[in-house]
């Protein structure tokens, strides 16, 4: 047992050493002409400006992360792949849409002191541990599709000071759907389904709360597993409750099974099914076939009138770069996240005569938070003091043609609410 004792004492000694190191470490605050309380990134002439991304690019949710990541790449392409005179280089990491993946990806990004800012993640569970790690290393982060309210809640704490979020939060979306369903459509009895994802569950909960507050009744509160393929039993149960409509903000797989199998259940033929932008895109159209007709989704408005003129051009560029049209609903968020960071960098970067650029991070973070009326492809973006930069243009769309090739937000799916912006 001698060796292991030796090991133990060695390890203990090292811990103490680490502690000493950590407490003595302090960032240099003045680099070149710039001073910053956090850190300054120095980019020599010709060197790239490194932007990290972390999204889910493996496993079952690949499409979600890949779509967002590609949005950022399209944005960089629109900038001519240069920013303040330096080429843009991406460092794409995979967060696996889970907490430990987000943490590992963030730690890797944080270890690279050349990284100016990070984009991601697409999942709240990955973003939650990642953002504090990034900010501790002086890297501001733009959450692209992580919509959990806690990320931009007033009590989120100083470790999230570096995080802004480009997507709406669930509190808003759930409330809007409830309002629309009760007031506009006049639905009194709602059924809800979620797939156990934090996103869908939170939306459903917020929706229920608001719907009840308005005077509606939630007659059936159901859930399925994300890998379920057979929705008939759960739909049968919902049918027995005779709802006016079904709210299912689930992801593509579950949603398409719901769409296809709903028609087989007696009593549900006429009941509306409303999804969310988690299932938006060509994938759902491919997977649902002709039963898609009439399916409605609740989302932020995503057509030229609401989003500004950029979206269509972006879609075409996406196709040119990746050989297919957007595969999910969050590419616009990726695009705008990149643009937000780029605009902030342009504001604060200082380039010397010799071509060296200095980027003060605290100033960059403040510039990001100060974003006002930025015209993005998802709409006009304004950030609040807690970093919520989501675009809140609620709309309901309805599919008019099941052919994936006809996907064109505004025409198919067609906006049915509101009629005018």
């Amino acid at each position, binding site marked *: 047992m001698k060796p*292991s004792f030796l090991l133990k004492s060695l390890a203990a000694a090292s811990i103490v050493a680490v502690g000493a190191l950590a407490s003595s470490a302090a960032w240099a605050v003045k680099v070149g002409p710039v001073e910053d309380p956090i850190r300054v990134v120095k980019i020599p002439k010709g060197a790239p400006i490194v932007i990290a991304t972390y999204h889910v690019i493996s496993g079952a949710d690949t499409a979600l992360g890949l779509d967002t990541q590609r949005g950022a790449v399209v944005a960089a392409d629109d900038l001519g792949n240069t920013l303040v005179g330096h080429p843009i280089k991406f460092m794409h990491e995979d967060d696996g849409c889970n907490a430990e993946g987000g943490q590992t990806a963030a730690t890797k990004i944080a270890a690279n002191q050349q990284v100016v800012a990070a984009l991601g993640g697409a999942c709240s569970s990955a973003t939650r541990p990642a953002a504090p790690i990034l900010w501790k290393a002086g890297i501001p982060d733009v959450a692209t599709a992580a919509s959990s309210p806690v990320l931009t809640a007033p009590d989120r704490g100083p470790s999230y000071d570096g995080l802004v979020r480009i997507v709406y939060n669930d509190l808003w979306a759930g409330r809007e759907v409830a309002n629309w369903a009760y007031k506009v459509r006049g639905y009194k009895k709602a059924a809800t389904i979620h797939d156990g994802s934090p996103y869908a569950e939170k939306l459903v909960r917020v929706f229920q709360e608001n719907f009840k507050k308005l005077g509606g009744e939630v007659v059936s509160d159901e859930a399925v597993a994300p890998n379920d393929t057979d929705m008939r039993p759960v739909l049968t149960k919902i049918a027995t409750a005779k709802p006016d409509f079904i709210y299912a903000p689930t992801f593509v797989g579950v949603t398409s099974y719901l769409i296809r199998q709903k028609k087989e259940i007696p009593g549900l033929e006429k009941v509306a099914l409303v999804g969310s932008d988690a299932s938006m895109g060509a994938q759902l159209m491919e997977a649902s076939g002709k039963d898609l007709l009439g399916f409605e989704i609740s989302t932020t408005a995503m057509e030229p009138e609401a989003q500004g003129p950029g979206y269509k051009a972006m879609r075409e560029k996406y196709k040119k770069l990746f050989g297919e049209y957007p595969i999910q609903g969050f590419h616009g968020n990726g695009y705008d996240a990149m643009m937000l960071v780029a605009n902030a960098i342009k504001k604060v970067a200082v380039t010397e005569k010799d071509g060296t650029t200095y980027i003060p991070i605290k100033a960059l973070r403040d510039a990001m938070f100060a974003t006002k009326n930025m015209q993005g492809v998802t709409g006009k973006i304004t950030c609040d003091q807690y970093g919520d930069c989501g675009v809140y243009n609620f709309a309901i769309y309805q599919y008019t043609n099941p052919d994936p090739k006809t996907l064109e937000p505004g025409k198919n799916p067609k906006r049915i609410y509101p009629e005018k912006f």
Partner: protein
Amino acid sequence: MSFEIIASSFQHKDIEQSQLRRTLKCGAIGGGTVVALCVFGLINQFMERWIIENLLSLAHAAFIGITLTVGALIAIRSPKLSPAARIFQGFLVGMVSGVFLSILILIMATFDIRNMFVSLSPKLLMFLSYGFDPYTACAVTIIVGGVLGLIGAAIRESPPWLRKPLITGLATAFFIGLFAELLQLAMQYETVDPIRDYMFTWEGQTLTGAITMFVLGFVLSLFWVMRGKQVMANHRAKSHASQRSIRYFLYAIAIVLFLLFPMAAGSFFGQVLMLVGLYVLMGMGLNLEVGLAGLLDLGFVAFFATGAYTIALFTADNEHLILLIDRPLTWWEALPLAMFASLMMGLAFGIPVLKVRGDYLAVATMGLGEIIRVVVLSDMASPLLGGSQGLLHIPRPWIGDFELNDPIHLFYLTLISSIIAAYFAWALENSRLGRAWMAIREDEDVGQALGINLVNVKLLAYGLGAWFAGLAGAIFAVMLGSIFPHSFQLLISINILALIIVGGIGSLPGVVVGALMLIGTPELLREFGEYRFLAYGFVLIVMMRVKPLGLWPSAVRKRELAAAAEAEAQMRATSGQKA
């Protein structure tokens, strides 16, 4: 070892094959691999990755490496030919490989098959044909393939003093290039800035860096080839005692380097090593169950989850907090609770499956593991466990006034836990209980006849195994600061089982090696996203084929299997049957 017997029987058959068939076969291996890399979409990713900046991409390196290898392979497999003929064989094999790739190029150029094979993009075609028209491209591909095959065979045929340094040099340059980004992450100090700038840019390795690395590898290897024997002989000439002290000295240096490595290399390596550490902990636990007691368990993640959730429930300041005293417990206070909870969970698992054996056990435990996961995620349990929103705000542990909040701190915590746990595992293995486990692993009925209390012994295996996982879960919870049910998938159970078997079942050092191999390496290849798992699967297959006993098998196991294989061989020899 039966695997070798089979392998040697293949070789035996191989010699009897005609030379033509052998050539075609080797060529098909090379060509097939290259085409598969294209079709699976790996080349699309490899194209983007420079081994040597703006000169040699990983895709090029893969093509070259594969063709060189098959060239060398045919040279090895044609022992009857003269050296010159063997080198010519290399040329032929390289050409055959080239033909495979050419066919792919022609198909891609003629038909639009991207609807089916999404990876065969125009960009890939451009890359494969170097901007030539398809027919020229085919000719070039075949000729280049032939030349590379020839070089491969030639390297194989060259004398050892040239061959070994050459291979080492190339490999050094390649791996430095492959891990350029990670190495740079580890070199974030001003003092090594000049070296870093000389070797790398953020895009990859510089040409000068690659040449330097090649020369370095070449020279070191050359030195070893020239002088290695003598050094070893000198070493052996020394007295036994001094040999041993040198060995201990080297071990000590290795250990110190390992301990200091994460501190020097930064948080990311700390984080990766910490994940490895967690899997080592779980691996040691599962090793008690599977390795020693022979109880196959595919639901191990449930114990891990129990540990993590216990910590979260007792320490995290949120609405799910369970108050035992007037304040939330600290991590240190909750730790024994977490381990105890896992132990109880282990017993709860063990009781229903006591009478279930073998593969039935694997399925039963998998079912139990899934039950736990489904319950944790469900709306039914969410008032208690938070459901899919997870449990947030788990505080970090403190030592006095010092908060362990960096991955490196937590790595050392994991390391110390692992060492303590390893001591327990070692002690258990050599205890009366450990021997009882091994006895029932071999034969339950005989074990029972020998007076082993099957029920107690089995339940102890589950409980103690779960205890280790609970410890790992407790660290996992503070590592993340918030836990979600999606972190506890069946995949984790599978990973742990895979790592203890790849490491060598029943062997403690094997667990460490297996975890480094199966958890550490994929983390380092994070940027390849989805293809990590392709590589993971491939590595599992190759490891099992090459080292069916694992990388570091336990001595007992090795002896047993050798004896079994011998008996088998004897039986086969007498019966003359090909089974």
